[in-house]
């Protein structure tokens, strides 16, 4: 029963989300006009579709119907059992969590540190996280990669990227200073 429940969890979460979203559509304010279906109609169609599909699948998982009775897309039948070459490798959740944390940290810190410094730190940290241990290559690649990104996006393409707050903005200014003559 525990296995069945585990298999049904994603669909039960979808059902709960659908209920919350349906309630949220009730909070949408608009100037109701007679004879018009209103702005809540379309999201409710989508929520209904999600809830119906999730309910069917949750019941299937809880009742442990045979997996070969499940209707699948044509692509599944065509591609058969061809799996990615990494599919056999064991999962390492710690790597995933660290990757997520690193990515969230980048999103949080990029406005403070600035694009240049945050990118340099992220590149180096991510390479180590990906189990690459050639220190010279890691740090050289991080420096060169950061300079390349800064040159392309801050100098050539000129994308509006965070420059950082004091004192970290000095790093951005220093790197941009290097490109002054390009």
């Amino acid at each position, binding site marked *: 029963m525990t296995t069945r429940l585990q298999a049904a969890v994603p669909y039960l979460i979808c059902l709960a989300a659908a209920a919350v979203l349906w309630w949220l559509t009730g909070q949408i304010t608009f100037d109701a006009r007679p*004879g*018009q279906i209103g702005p809540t109609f*379309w999201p409710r169609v989508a929520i209904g579709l999600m809830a119906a599909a999730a309910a069917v*699948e949750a019941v299937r998982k809880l009742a442990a119907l045979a997996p070969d009775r499940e209707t699948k897309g044509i692509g599944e039948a065509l591609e058969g059992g061809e799996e990615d*070459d990494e599919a056999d490798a064991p999962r390492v959740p710690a790597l995933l969590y660290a990757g997520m944390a690193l990515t969230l940290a980048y*999103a949080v810190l*990029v406005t403070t540190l600035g694009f240049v410094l945050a990118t340099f730190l992220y590149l180096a940290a991510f390479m180590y996280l990906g189990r690459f241990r050639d220190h010279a290559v890691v740090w050289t690649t991080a420096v060169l990669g950061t300079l390349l990104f800064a040159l392309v*996006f801050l100098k050539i393409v000129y994308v509006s990227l965070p420059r950082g707050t004091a004192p970290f903005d000095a790093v951005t200014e220093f790197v941009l200073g290097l490109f002054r003559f390009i």
Partner: protein
Amino acid sequence: MLELVSQLGGGLVNCLAPLNLLALVLGIVVGLLVGVLPGLTLVMGVILVLPFTYKMDVTASIILLTAMYVSGTYGGAFTSILFRIPGEPIHVPLLWDGYAMARAGKPAKALGWTLVAALVGGVVSWIIMVLLTKPVAGFALRFSTPEYFAIVVFGLASVIALGRGALANAFIALALGLLIASVGTDATYGSYRFTFGLPLLADGIEFLVVMVGAYGVGEVLTRLERGFASKPIQTVADARTELPTLSEIGEVKGMLLRSSLLGNIVGIVPGAGATIASFVSYGVESQFGRRKSAMGSGIAEGIVAPQSAATASVGGALIPLLALGLPGSGATAVILGAFMLHGIQPGPQVLVTSAAMVYTIFASLLLGVLLMCVLGYFAIRPLVRILDFPEAIVSAFVMILCFVGALSIRGNITDLWLMTGFGLLGYLFERFRFPIAPLVLGVILGPIAEESFMNAMISFGNDWTVFFTRPISGTIMAITALTLLLPVIAGVRQRRVADAQRRGHGTGAAKHG
């Protein structure tokens, strides 16, 4: 016809302008590299290049992205044949005959067949694209809101029916995509939906943020969890191309043309991109081909069928994008995004208002196919050397490009947060086998579907039968219903076959017992 040739000539001249030519060459090279690298999918590659196009001219941007799209269908063939590593799912069928031919001591010949297939597939689909786009756009000018709604529903239905994994998961992904698309200010009533008081959400969620997150960050996180454990690469022993002789090509010319046409038709169908084209073409050859019994043993037909169809699907996929403004695949969705970022809405009018640009894109695709083959012939060795790059380094750069992509869409940090969130969602989708394509196409096509539905309701007095009673929309709706029935019928057939086999085994076992 003369007008068409003259416009194509003008397009060719435009295409040879230095910036456009540079974009073309870069697109072909980067597309080939993306195809070679197993960690980078074709859609991801096109997405990652998008930030570089913001300051470019619209024509050069589209040339760059289209060139990547077409060469991405070819690059992965090298690694499939030489190392048994499909750079893209498109090239999985090449493992069966391409790798088998290489193992039989003829890798150069296998690569030569791939080149011929990509060339013929690309040229055939280019001809069809040039001839069909204008008539399709002309026909689409007769469409009203019910027809547009029906076409979009057909697109969404085919994405579900032709996808991978459980149909219920695809429906959930699609519904989620439609909901994400409904965030922001409602176009008809002007009311805020799911904005939670955040000003940025009032403008809605950019579909590129969803695409970059779900395809880019989600894929990297999935591979990171496995510790970037790609198979080690052997030394390249015979990385050169040996073209087949004309008489050898003559022997397979019929199937080459058939596979190219099939790939083009599959490409036109929304949701069925190069991967489906490649598998369908291989499947058709296995069932009806002249040498069907030898398929899988390393014969030319097993290489030519999937490769020509995959490359031919590109021209097919560009027809609905340019003529109707509807992207049918992830890559064409990014190209649509590039158009829209430059203030151009593809569709029936674009051939009238921006004819010069469209014909330049047409000409660039032909040049791109030719250039791709030339590069494929001479540059295999350096191209496959990219596999020596550690995946951790490539992935770190991919992540930064994803961040830049998100930050540069509206220049707002909230988009980076949203992209990170969609990256986690993309990972969860991969983890629990929910398809990403319906989510993304739901986000892209959702607003078009809602707008045409709402306008139809207002115009036809809330009469929903209008979608079924008007000739064109009714026909499209009927095709949509059939498309949705396809997986159900295929499932029933498969179960019957499996049951029959089980009964056969049971009888056999009983007899043996």
